[in-house]
């Protein structure tokens, strides 16, 4: 139930048995069914969510009703509306399970307590935030300066798993291209091979 979490934390900080048992107490284990939402835009995001099993996506909906996928989260990764979680203000994102999933939720108070009570957790979250900023910066740059094909190849390179598991529509939305463009790029790329 906590295997992925413990290995994620264990890869960044040293964890002894006591610390492992202690830190489990701060996380709320939840099973979610495919298509179930764990956050609706307009609510306050109360948790940062670690994915033990399955896949989720965060997305926004624009005024015309079009969805824009912000992030996919598979096993071993975190997902939330960070701005809402940290500020207590309304979330912009919806978060939906794309597969039957098992997650671990960490609330604001629990996160604070965890950092105080388990040595090294402050460092873990600092590294997590750093990685978050790096990922965000890459995404912004990709969005501004890469061609559709370059964005596609980049995603293939860093997250081939997501390419296989997510729907074409969601991948196209994530890359800010139309499903038709995505399909064309796919053909081009496979012809080049």
């Amino acid at each position, binding site marked *: *139930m906590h295997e992925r979490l413990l290995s994620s934390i264990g890869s960044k900080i040293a964890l002894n048995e006591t610390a492992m048992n202690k830190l*489990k*107490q*701060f*996380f*709320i*284990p*939840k*099973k*979610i*069914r495919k298509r179930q*939402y*764990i*956050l*609706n835009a*307009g*609510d306050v995001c109360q948790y940062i969510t670690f994915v033990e099993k399955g896949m989720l996506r965060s997305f926004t909906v624009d005024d015309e009703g079009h969805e824009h996928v912000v992030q996919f989260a598979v096993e071993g990764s975190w997902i939330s509306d960070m701005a809402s979680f940290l500020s207590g203000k309304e979330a912009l994102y919806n978060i939906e399970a794309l597969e039957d999933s*098992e997650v671990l*939720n960490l*609330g604001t108070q*629990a996160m604070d307590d965890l950092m105080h009570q388990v040595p090294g957790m402050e460092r873990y979250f600092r590294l997590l935030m750093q990685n978050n900023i790096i990922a965000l910066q890459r995404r912004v740059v990709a969005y501004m300066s890469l061609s559709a094909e370059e964005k596609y190849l980049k995603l293939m390179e860093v997250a081939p798993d997501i390419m296989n598991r997510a729907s074409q529509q969601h991948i196209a939305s994530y890359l800010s291209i139309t499903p038709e463009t995505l399909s064309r790029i796919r053909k081009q790329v496979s012809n080049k091979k």
Partner: protein
Amino acid sequence: MATINTIAIIGATGNMGSAIAKSLSKPGSYRLLLMSNDTDELAQLYSQLKEPNTGTEIYSISCAREASWEADIIIVATQNDAEKEVAEKIREVATGKIVISISNPLNSAYRQLITSSDTSAAEELQKLLPNSKVVKTFNTTFAADFISSVIDEKTADVFIAGNNGDAVKTVSEVVKSAGFNPIIAGDLSVSRTLERMQLLRIRYTMNNSYNWLAGWKILHN
């Protein structure tokens, strides 16, 4: 639109469990996970609730751990003497979640409580589930009250006791949704009083051969 809380009812086919399930199955209120060891009765309850409430997400699950894992709020509606066994099964997956204790630790003749005066069924459950937020409620309510929460033209009061303020607030909403008037009675140790209140009422009802449609109401002006 807020995400809908998921409530697991452990022991959903029992007298109280099924009454609670029916009262919470209105569309839009909650996702319901009905759990019982009796698979035949569970299937029956499921179709009984699902048909008139097609807008409500209702699932039947035969494993207490699975149901509690998927839930935000867990209602333990088993017999009091089965609570220990349930607690063992759900302990890990109930971490950080609200667990509602509805039971009254009555002896087999319904004449006395089996707990000593310095504790309660709710506090004992909290000891078994140290990482959960145990809240006492619905123990002063008879199963019949869930069908008709208005008695003698008054909405019956339902008392709530718990140590976590947010959990108590969330449970108040559940109580309201079931059709009752929630009254926050205090911390979890107040369960000692609440469980004895129900003993008083059961004895009173039995001694006078009254029917079971009866509730508590605090009157004040």
